[in-house]
């Protein structure tokens, strides 16, 4: 069920026509969805970004010198909507760049720093990775152990990062490291941009339960970072990290809210399997529809509030919470529809592999960018104003249980 698109305002429709024409000329080869091998996807993503920058669509709100056109946020969304009609290549390293790295550097860094990192990125010369999580610091990100020690005008970094997606294709990394272990854990962190070509960086793939290796472990051994790449003040890394995470979650919800009309697909699958007359199937489809439409409409509310300059409804954290669980349930359902046979992908049903992959992937979605449990804490605390749990970690980092002992 498609909802009626909001009526375009007069001054925007001309821009939309321009965008459509440009895309028709430049994105024709991306009309259909295609799966590229990893290296090709990366190369195509960067090339496509470059082409957009040359036409002033690289980051519309930036000036022309930076690959933009001094445009408005509304223009940016129009471009995004129109681009979404194509299957243009965008690998994760660009998502991190535009969704997390640049907004954070703009907010917390010096203008010189923003310009230095934004330019190659917008022009399609640099992808990014995120070096935050560690084997012992996931939900509790502030518990990370990677150390950065100042040495004059530079920093020497040692440690191990994990879940750094596509790090092997990144030109830069945003890095959170501990610069003072003698203060409470949130206060001893500093935020850096790491040039991924620096010696001492080793990127190793992590084999996932899907069998793929989208993520890496990154080992840092005496890696040197110039102080000029420090973003924000020493010890203020946590504030930068929060900006990154806010942007990450918002991005995840955006993606969730524009997910394809999956309940309509489920309905067709149930129909094809002759199960649409089952009231329990109907009941499940109805519940998922309620969630899918609820998220879509919640997204419309957010967008409308932003457009009016109002505070959006604060429960954004719910978007990933709902969509990840639904993803697990609906893909289990698609297996169930086939009964025993639904657990096998014969050559005439290659889409079943996609069902398996999504069922597996849902378990990562329920963790990445904030585990469900953490999101529920946040909803209770930030939206409902309930108190946080008694904290046991308000002591200097090096006196924490689990740190002391190790």
């Amino acid at each position, binding site marked *: 069920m498609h909802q009626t698109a909001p009526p375009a305002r007069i001054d925007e429709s001309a821009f939309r026509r321009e965008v459509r024409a440009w895309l028709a000329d430049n994105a024709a080869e991306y009309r259909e969805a295609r799966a590229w091998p990893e290296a090709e996807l990366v190369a195509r993503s960067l090339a496509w970004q470059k082409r957009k920058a040359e036409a002033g669509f690289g980051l519309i709100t930036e000036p022309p010198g930076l690959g933009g056109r001094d445009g408005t946020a509304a223009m940016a969304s129009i471009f995004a909507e129109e681009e979404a009609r194509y299957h243009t290549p965008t690998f994760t390293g660009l998502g991190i760049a535009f969704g997390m790295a640049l907004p954070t550097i703009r907010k917390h860094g010096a203008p010189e720093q923003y310009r230095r990192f934004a330019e190659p990125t917008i022009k399609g010369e640099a992808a990014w990775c995120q070096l935050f999580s560690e084997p012992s610091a996931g939900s509790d990100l502030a518990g990370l152990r990677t150390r950065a020690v100042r040495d004059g005008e530079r920093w020497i970094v040692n440690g191990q990062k994990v879940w750094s997606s596509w790090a092997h294709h990144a030109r830069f990394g945003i890095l959170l490291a501990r610069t003072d272990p003698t203060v409470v854990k949130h206060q001893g962190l500093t935020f850096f941009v790491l040039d991924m070509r620096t010696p001492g960086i080793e990127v190793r793939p992590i084999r996932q339960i899907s069998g793929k290796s989208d993520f890496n472990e990154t080992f840092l051994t005496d890696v040197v970072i110039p102080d000029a790449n420090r973003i924000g003040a020493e010890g203020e890394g946590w504030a930068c990290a929060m900006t990154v995470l806010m942007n990450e979650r918002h991005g995840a919800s955006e993606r969730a809210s524009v997910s394809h009309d999956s309940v309509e697909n489920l309905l067709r699958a149930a129909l094809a399997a002759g199960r649409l007359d089952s009231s329990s199937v109907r009941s499940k489809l109805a519940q998922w529809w309620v969630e899918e439409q609820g998220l879509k409409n919640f997204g419309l509310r957010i967008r409308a509030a932003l457009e009016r300059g109002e505070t959006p409804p604060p*429960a954004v954290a719910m978007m990933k919470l709902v969509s990840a669980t639904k993803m697990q349930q609906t893909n289990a359902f698609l297996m169930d529809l086939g009964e025993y046979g639904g657990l096998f992908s014969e050559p005439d049903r290659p889409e079943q592999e996609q069902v398996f992959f999504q069922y597996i992937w849902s378990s990562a979605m329920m963790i990445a960018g904030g585990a469900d449990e953490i999101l529920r804490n946040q909803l*209770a605390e930030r939206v409902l104003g309930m108190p946080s749990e008694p904290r046991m970690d308000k002591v200097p980092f090096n006196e924490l249980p689990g740190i002391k002992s190790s």
Partner: protein
Amino acid sequence: MDLHFGDELKQLQEEVRRLLTERVSANLLRRLISEDEGYDPALWRTAAELGLLGAAVPEQYGGSGLGERAVCAIAEEMGRAVAPLPFFSSICLAAEAIKLAGAPAQKSAWLPRLASGEAIGTFAWQEGLGPPETDVDARFENGRISGVKSPVPDALLADVAVVVCEGPRLALADLSKGVRREPLRGFDQLRSHAKLVFENTPAEAMDVPDPKDALRRLYDRAAIYAAFEQLGAAESAMFMARDYTLQRYTFGRQLASYQAVKHNLANILVMVELARSNALYAAAALEADAPDLGAAAATARLAATRAYETAARENLQLHGGVGFTWEADCHFHYRRARLLALSLGSPAIWENRLIEALTKKNAAAA
């Protein structure tokens, strides 16, 4: 589709909220239950004076013509306050039915009186157990109704009823003319219901060309208003639980600091926000008379029913033993949530309506 309620509506809604906060206390509700009173007539008069009853009645019939979204906004506040008023029966059912299916003379006769609160209306569709409108036995012939409708909401108060008869046909019955009313004992003690016994009772035909379609549209519209009522009530139960857990200490900590309590309320918050988003979309679809109104109404109703039932149950649970006492007031929502879940048809019925709508759309697209 703009889901936003404009400033005028927001102001109206705040006004209603202030009024009901002031006038609808738990003491009042408990008193009404004890005295078996169906509603608060003084509050009804005030609501009428403020123009709340005629919000979606066209100006030519004495309403303010604010539109359907205004009714949604008011219904939300009615739900929040568990307001003891026949608003849903008279405005969301009877007035809507007359607007949809009434002859011009019927509209002129009744809409102004409903909008002014001078008359109370209701809608009589159910005949005992089971889904609405299967095997309607009540007959309308030669200007007379025979049959039994039950349960009928606010039927003891009502002056006029729109009655679903076999066919289906719709008839308009002036309840002062030879109708027997038998009060019913219901699970929700705050909204009175009765059985209406028609024995060759005079009534007027509502000769809408396609009564079946009119009924379908009426249920869609009523479902959206009900969704707002449920939404306001769900939010109220959620905040009631939140406030109690903030104030209660157990094992040396605020109850609200326990993760099980927080996650329980976070889950309810998610249901409430989904319900609100879907209700706002449905309200916009209603005002625009959008082609996907049927699906939007079912979506809003299902989301709101789930949110309210869960919030009402968990509110009681989170109050612990205190919640089980009459004075703790959790029971108003615990009972009302069940009433609203079933009164327009259970979730199973709306799931079917939704899937039928989606299937039809899918077939049309194919």
